[in-house]
């Protein structure tokens, strides 16, 4: 018999029931809930008179729709009546169903995928769901984590399970040693560029290899975060000593004997040497350049020293048309060197890149420099605790002195549901994960980059190869 993969192991450990048709009832260990995809689920419970099966396995907070400007007025002072109602509704629902709710003025409040790991709510080997596609982030700990729709949110609340069919195994080997200017974001973009936005559809990805082992936990979160951009159901990294070191002592992580027992179990969570994957690709991190997207799909990736692609070079008609459409939307001309493309806005934040390591990296580039006058740049920390830590380290001062706005935690301009959004035609260097048409505001033009590249664009006014900037500095 051949060995099993990490995904197989977690899957097998969570199967409650297997139907004859292959669909399985899977146990869910943790459920993160936010304000946008949950109101209709709670309404469903009320209408059917159902209760929440395991309230202590749920953690709720508002992040998508929350203002990132001064919040001292509290929820009542939120200007947009719909946003306010949605946040109040979540708070009310949590009270009604007995769920832990991290309020807006709680220092732990932040983006759900930042707060969960930070609190030790996320642990290896668990199944974790949330009504948000970037739940894949938690895979960085070796947890099987994926996004679900609102009907499934209701299903998990009522039953603590999900009906699932098993995905296939896809291993992404990232070999070589990444140069110091290559971040987890570049690796993530390289993978999406390589396999395409549907390349992972029907699969769970396992990221493996020396370049993955070398990544920090923050970096692994960035990487797993973008698994969904490759169409995958989830992304996984096997837990290791870094994982345990990150989690030990966190508020919701096990303590004492439970901790020791948990770690002993977590050590069994890796793919067997003879495990068979349905698909594998290998990417060499040692020769990656810093990357930037040029189009309206995360797979539209190009080296910072490259140029806007020419649709005329594309043979496939559907692809050519889609490239033409993207360039038209993005207001770009084929052949333009990416480094000559001027930007209007910079967004450093989102569940992809808003952790302390990201802010440190961006601050290192911004330090002593100034955001060019034509650019407006903002930094939105991933959680209140990250904001606090950054302030302790004086990062806020570096950003503010350089001319960046320093905001309160939330999703902000990653999806532009609140007031933080691009105006039509504005071009943004963004550390978020999606560059879809209108994602950051109707008519807005998003280019995905690492925090370093975003900071570099802010202080130069155009996309800039951080390799050159670093050499100067």
């Amino acid at each position, binding site marked *: 018999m051949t060995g099993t993969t990490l995904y197989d192991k977690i899957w097998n450990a969570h199967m409650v*029931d297997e139907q004859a048709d292959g669909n399985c*009832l899977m146990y869910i260990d943790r459920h993160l809930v936010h304000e946008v995809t949950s*109101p209709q689920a709670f309404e469903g419970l009320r209408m*059917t008179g159902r209760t929440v099966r395991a309230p202590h396995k749920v953690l709720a907070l508002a992040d998508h729709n929350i203002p990132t400007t001064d919040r001292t007025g509290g929820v009542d002072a939120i200007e947009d009546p*719909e946003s306010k*109602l949605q946040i109040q509704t979540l708070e009310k629902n949590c009270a009604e169903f007995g769920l832990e709710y991290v309020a807006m003025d709680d220092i732990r409040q932040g983006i759900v995928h930042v707060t969960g790991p930070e609190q030790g709510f996320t642990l290896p080997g668990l199944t974790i769901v949330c009504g948000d596609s970037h739940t894949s982030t938690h895979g960085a700990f070796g947890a099987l984590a994926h996004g679900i729709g609102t009907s499934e949110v209701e299903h998990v609340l009522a039953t603590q399970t999900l009906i699932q069919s098993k995905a296939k195994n896809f291993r992404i080997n990232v070999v070589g040693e990444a140069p110091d200017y290559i971040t987890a974001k570049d690796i993530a973009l390289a993978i999406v560029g390589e396999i395409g936005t*549907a390349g992972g559809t029907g699969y769970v990805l396992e990221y493996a290899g020396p370049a993955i082992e070398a990544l920090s936990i923050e970096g692994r979160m960035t990487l797993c975060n973008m698994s969904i951009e490759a169409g995958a159901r989830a992304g996984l990294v096997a837990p290791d000593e870094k994982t345990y070191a990150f989690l030990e002592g966190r508020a919701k992580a096990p303590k004492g004997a439970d901790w020791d027992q948990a770690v002993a*179990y977590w050590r069994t969570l890796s793919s067997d040497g003879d495990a068979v994957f349905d698909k594998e690709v290998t990417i060499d991190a040692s020769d990656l350049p810093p990357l930037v997207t040029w189009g309206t799909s995360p797979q539209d990736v190009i080296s910072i020293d490259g140029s806007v692609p020419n649709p005329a070079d594309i043979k496939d008609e559907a692809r050519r048309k*889609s490239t033409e459409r993207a360039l038209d939307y993005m207001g770009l001309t084929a052949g333009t060197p990416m480094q000559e493309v001027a930007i209007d806005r910079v967004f450093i934040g989102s569940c992809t890149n808003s952790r302390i390591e990201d802010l440190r990296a961006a601050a290192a580039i911004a330090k002593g420099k100034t955001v060019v006058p034509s650019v407006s740049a903002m930094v939105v920390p991933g959680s209140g605790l990250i904001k606090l830590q950054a302030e302790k380290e004086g990062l806020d001062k570096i950003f503010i002195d350089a001319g960046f706005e320093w905001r309160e935690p939330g999703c902000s301009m990653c*999806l532009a549901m609140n007031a933080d959004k691009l105006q039509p035609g504005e071009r943004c260097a963004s550390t978020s994960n999606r560059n879809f048409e209108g994602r950051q505001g109707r008519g807005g033009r998003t280019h995905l980059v690492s925090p370093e590249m975003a900071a570099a664009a802010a202080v130069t006014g155009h996309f800039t190869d951080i390799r050159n900037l670093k050499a100067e500095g």
Partner: protein
Amino acid sequence: MQKFNHLTGIAAPLDILNVDTDMIIPKQFLKTIQRSGLGKNLFDEMRYTPEGEEVADFVLNQAAYREAEVLVAGDNFGCGSSREHAPWALLDFGIRCVISTSFADIFYNNCFKNGILPIVLPQADVDKLMDDAKRGANATVTIDLESQTIKGPDGGTIAFEVDAFRKKCLLEGLDDIGLTLQKSTSIDTYETALADQPWR
């Protein structure tokens, strides 16, 4: 959930690759705490100008497709955000079936929970249906879930695959949660065994 068994309706062609859920229903409409009423904002930023005027050449604004019940679309339909507002908006508009060469996982799942049938077909079949759909109001298709077939306007029949369990749920309009609650004892047993792993 609304049942789905048999549908005869107009198919609208949406010949775009990677239609994401941000396109299907932009985020400004996610502030609602209800499921209904999203149909008027389906494909909002493609369908209306910033001033709120209809964009004449957008497919669902054309006379032939205003009553469309089927959407024929390019590869990787429904990628991006997990928002179930996307199928809610489609349903509220009147779309009960989407046909493409592939769908993003979460969107595909969400459709079944809302009585929408997503059909995956090989490129050649989608091309054919896309062609037919482009011919306008005459391009009525008939979809029969029981026999898993699509009949085109010229009488040709295309067969499709669908998971047996999902098919049953759609045909009978079954409530997933109700079905799962019938297995409460299995869940109880599973939870009892969890005592061995206190951190869970």
